[in-house]
């Protein structure tokens, strides 16, 4: 998998939408009459971090709203609400996507991973979460879930990412406090590489 940035996250959304359209989940393919949904709320079940969440949502509900308001998973943040900041990043069937630009109904049947799902069920942290803590790769922490999801997605495909690969994979994420340097160090360390400036104590 190539490293993808902001446009890449958007592209992966488009690719995913295409996939769901082909599978018929979004209604209307292969000559079938398009199924009509809404405007009233419809039943929807989302599989998030391996858990099924049943909800009743209007078809215009974004995946981000469904996660935060209906599934109670508020780790995924709304920051820019237009695909520019990466704060609402999630993995959909393992692919990085910004959940503010996706309809919840398009994700029925998909396996969704949010920041709450990065650690194992027994609480064992993802190596990147541990590295974020150790390298102080967060300040206010509001962008942190998005960076972690993007970083975990990068690590899943690229065992030893270079600094430019890390920067490219996270190009769709914005941090306002200014933690980028420590984030890069965290990814480098989590992938068994030497940080840019080694500020940790063994």
């Amino acid at each position, binding site marked *: 998998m190539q490293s993808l940035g902001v446009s890449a996250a958007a592209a992966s959304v488009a690719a995913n939408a295409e996939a769901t359209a082909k599978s018929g989940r979004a209604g209307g393919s292969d000559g079938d009459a398009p199924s009509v949904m809404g405007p009233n709320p419809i039943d929807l079940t989302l599989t998030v971090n391996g858990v099924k969440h049943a909800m009743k949502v209007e078809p215009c509900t974004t995946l981000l709203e469904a996660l935060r308001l209906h599934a109670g998973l*508020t780790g995924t943040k709304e920051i*820019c609400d237009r695909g520019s900041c990466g704060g609402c990043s999630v993995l959909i069937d393992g692919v990085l996507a910004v959940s503010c630009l996706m309809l919840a109904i398009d994700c029925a049947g998909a396996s969704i991973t949010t920041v709450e799902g990065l650690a194992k069920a027994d609480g064992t942290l993802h190596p990147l979460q541990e590295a974020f803590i150790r390298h102080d790769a967060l300040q*206010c922490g509001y962008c*942190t879930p998005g960076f972690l999801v993007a970083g975990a997605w990068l690590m899943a495909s690229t065992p030893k990412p270079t600094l430019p690969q890390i*920067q490219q994979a996270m190009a769709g*994420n914005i941090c306002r406090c200014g933690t980028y340097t*420590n984030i890069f160090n965290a990814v480098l360390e989590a992938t068994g590489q030497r940080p840019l400036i080694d500020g940790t104590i063994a």
Partner: protein
Amino acid sequence: MSNQANTDAATLPPLANRPLNIGSSMNDDASRLDALAKVTGAAKYGRDVHPANALYIAFVRCPFGAATLESCDVDAARAVPGVVEADVSKRQGNYHGATVGHVAADSPLSLRRGMAALACRWKRKGDVVTTIEQGIEAEPELPVDAKAMIEQAGDRTLDATYSTEVQTHSSLETHGACVDHKGDSAVVYVSTQGTSSARDGLDEALGLPASKFEVVCEYVGGGFGSKLNGAGKEGMLAARIAAKHKRSAYLFVNRAEEHLDTGNRPSSRTRVRVAFEADGTIKGGHIQTWGGVGPNRGGGGVNVPSGRYRLGQITTAHADISLNGGMPRAFRAPGHPQGAFAEELMLDEVAARCGLDPLALRLRLIKADAIREMAELGARLIGWDKRLVNGAQAGPIRRGMGMGVTSWGRFPSSVDAEVVVNRDGSVEARTGTQDIGTGQRTVVGIVTADAMGVPLEAVTVRIGRSTLPPGPGSGGSVTTVNSAPAFMEAGKAAATQVLELVAGRTGAPVNELTIAGGEVRRNGAKVMAWKDACALIPDTIIGKGRNTQKTVAADKTTGTSGGAQFVDLDVDVETGVVKVHRIVAVQACGRVVSRKLAESQVIGGVIQGLSYALFEHRLLDRQTGAMVNPNLEWYKIAGPKDMPLIEPVLWSKDKEAAGPRPLGEPPTIPTAGAIACAIYNAIGVPVRSLPITPDKVLAAMAGKGGAK
């Protein structure tokens, strides 16, 4: 626990890939106490609180720089299913984002539909003022003395005008509050920089006495100065609507509103007219500044001259220019980055005119010895000896180096600290401050642990609640400076009470007892395990510490924090694109409490300064006064690919600095100026206007005065 001076320039090996700051702090290794909650998504910010049955609220806002509301269908909004309230009380707006009313509904979707149903029709009113230049009637005359000095200096004068654009705080968690209404009481979740002060006014809005509600602010998604005004108009409206409908209420503004109406760093224009001597000595002159503020004047000050350099006899004048744009608020070192940009670039221009190295000139002009030493160290670390003279390079990619200095004063602030020791040996440190990302929670924990002699893991820090003893607001870089002495006192008081119990039990003199390594010791030998000592506590022990403005003002162990930053960058003169490669930031902050957090503060300040220097620009439409980029797509903030290698160096050489000094603000002051100087060095002409975007670089090189 060591406090070694590890920044002695004479003994330094090369910087890259070495743990330069290790050994310099009270706690080198601790990670922030709330890091686990933040990396797992468990941290609940105010915006994450969604009580069942809450009302969702939005402001109705003016869409232009100046406009009259001609019509608005409030009845249609009220008729939308789910809308419980629609009220538009004002008819005029004098900036984009000015509030004229609100809608409340029982879900975000109903709220959106209600807002759309209003179908507001606005008529624009005449011309709008969107830039400082538009508001200046005439360039001011020089004062008599400055005029005489400049006339006498002949050619050795500089007359230059520097300008900066409005920077929005762009906190990632927007401004707002959620009122969890519980009938005869309430919990108010506010995203604020002042938990204790956020209570003010809410009693009236909620119709509840202060004893019947609590302000909670466990986590804040960024503030940078814009969240210092208590509960804000967002919290006040949410409280009033909650009280009126006896329901929970939620009002967090959206991204566009955050840009438009939650404060900003005002724009600036600085005209410098100075006389200098052949050796670069500045004789003096006159500096006129303007600040581009909101419709009401105030808040546009530009901090130049900064007082960090000897600039001779300078007179100053300032005027605020009212723009049809959102109001300014304090923004991390208010007035300073814009002033430092003008001052540093001015010095580089004087140095170039005199044929001097700008570092050599500055070393003569810097007033504080410590800052001069930091500048010498930073120059060595960046490799200043490889700097070429301005404009000496050919070819498409040109390298430049620049520098700037900083300082920040100490502001006293009151803090009440409590340290509770429980019978099981656990310790709680309590004060009503908040952690906006600076790491204040962790600082309180480290100081308490250090004062008592217990491990950090034994300490639970309770902050972010208005029911705790009053703590400081996060503004002016005061929280660590002022809470550290209070928690030192409280921690020692609590420890002493435990030791007195041990003394009573064992007969050992209390002044010979210490706490270390999980036990109470006498002359280094174990007397009792810490847990056993705490089991002697009859109920709980509370140690108290108080810092008043008076005690801090008298404290000689704290004071000003200086710093110096150095930039190494490339400019592509064919495209005008600037690529910053390295920034070395030498920063004093007195006694370092936490190495990791202190480094993060420096790195963050540098990155915000870089973003200010190269990207950030609130763009108002000249015709309508509407902000054309109220989003994070076209309001560009530095991202991962814009990052240089940033090397924070914590200056711990100051032997008098037994206490912590301010750190939040100073590292963001000099960065933009240092970058501007480095660009000047690379291309040979100064770009006197921030942000230094590629078009300005190309215009400056084409002799079109990208400068203005």
